[in-house]
């Protein structure tokens, strides 16, 4: 028996050595590993620090880009609404004026003026729609809850997919940056439902859960695959995740084949109040 087990003091030395080795590795105190044929220089700490630094830079850049994008969207929406919208309205009034003043002999002119007026009315509606899509005024005026309610209604109207909105928040008010981020995430999630899910119903839920705010978008479609979730080219998912991370939050996506997909965003309430 004794020849199989090393003496206790030898075991202790081996344990000490093992502990020292683990400690050195954990605290990144190893520079090189010497092998039979080569030496591997390890720069774990340096590489980890550089990687984390690069990640931080990328996140800051992404957050800044999102901010710039929202600012530009707001400016374009304002210009569209104020300048283009008003000019079109003036044009419409002018065409109506012409249509009312042409003589009975000028019926073709009257018909043309009315047809142009109808066209301008369609254009005014399009401009309003585009301006709202760029920057939903309701988000600034009525807040996130009402905007998501409205988004659910519009989504159902456009796609025919039944869309419900649930919340336990009442009249909670969130800060502007957080509201825009959650709105854009919901918009992107619904776009994915319309494009890929083949769903017949969708549910948006905005819930207070302890110290966190949880936003989920759930559908009953074909279910997202793991491959799609992990795909580095899924820019929509990456964009949503970056928005969540910028608010110290997390994004999880779960798909069940034939049962649907659930996207969940969890954000500390303190970050958006």
């Amino acid at each position, binding site marked *: 028996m004794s020849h199989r087990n090393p003496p206790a003091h030898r075991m202790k030395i081996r344990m000490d050595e093992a502990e*020292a*080795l683990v*400690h*050195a590795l954990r*605290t*990144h*105190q*190893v*520079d*090189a*590993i*010497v*092998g*039979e044929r080569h*030496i591997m*220089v390890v*720069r774990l*700490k*340096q590489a980890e620090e550089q990687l984390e630094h690069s990640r931080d830079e990328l996140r800051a850049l992404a957050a800044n880009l999102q901010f710039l994008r929202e600012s530009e969207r707001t400016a374009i929406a304002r210009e569209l609404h104020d300048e283009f919208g008003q000019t079109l309205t003036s044009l419409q009034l002018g065409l109506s004026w012409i249509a009312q003043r042409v003589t009975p002999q000028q019926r073709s002119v009257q018909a043309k003026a009315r047809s142009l007026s109808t066209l301008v009315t369609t254009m005014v509606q399009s401009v309003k729609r585009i301006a709202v899509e760029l920057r939903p005024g309701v988000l600034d005026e009525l807040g996130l809850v009402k905007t998501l309610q409205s988004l659910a209604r519009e989504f159902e109207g456009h796609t025919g997919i039944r869309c419900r909105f649930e919340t336990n928040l009442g009249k909670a008010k969130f800060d502007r940056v957080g509201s825009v981020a959650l709105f854009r995430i919901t918009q992107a999630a619904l776009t994915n439902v319309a494009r890929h899910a083949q769903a017949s119903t969708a549910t948006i839920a905005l819930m207070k859960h302890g110290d966190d705010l949880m936003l989920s978008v759930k559908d009953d479609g074909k279910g997202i695959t793991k491959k799609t979730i992990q795909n580095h080219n899924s820019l929509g998912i990456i964009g949503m995740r970056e928005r969540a991370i910028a608010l110290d939050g997390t994004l999880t996506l779960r798909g069940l084949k034939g049962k649907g997909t659930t996207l969940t965003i969890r954000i500390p309430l303190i970050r958006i109040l």
Partner: protein
Amino acid sequence: MINASKRAGNGAAVAGGKAYAFRLFVAGNESNSTQARGNLTQLCEEYLKGRYHIDIVDVLKDPAIALKHSVLLTPMLVMLKPRLGVSVLGNLGDTKKVIATLRLIGGER
């Protein structure tokens, strides 16, 4: 075989203590190796002034000697005198631990 060496004083034991000899295996100028060099020199100057000898072995230049001494990771400090076989892995930044392992204070100082 040995790429650099440092000898303090006359290199032999001086009055008041035993002579110490170390071999420090490093990987070029990598961060921990550079720190280990500096920390070892500082310790020796503080506790063994005039009675220590350090051989620096750069494994990037001479891996064979590392393998010969079963040194598979760097930086690794190996004591040659007065007690052969005592070794410390890492950048020697934990001064207390290094002193205790090498027994630089106490009976052998």
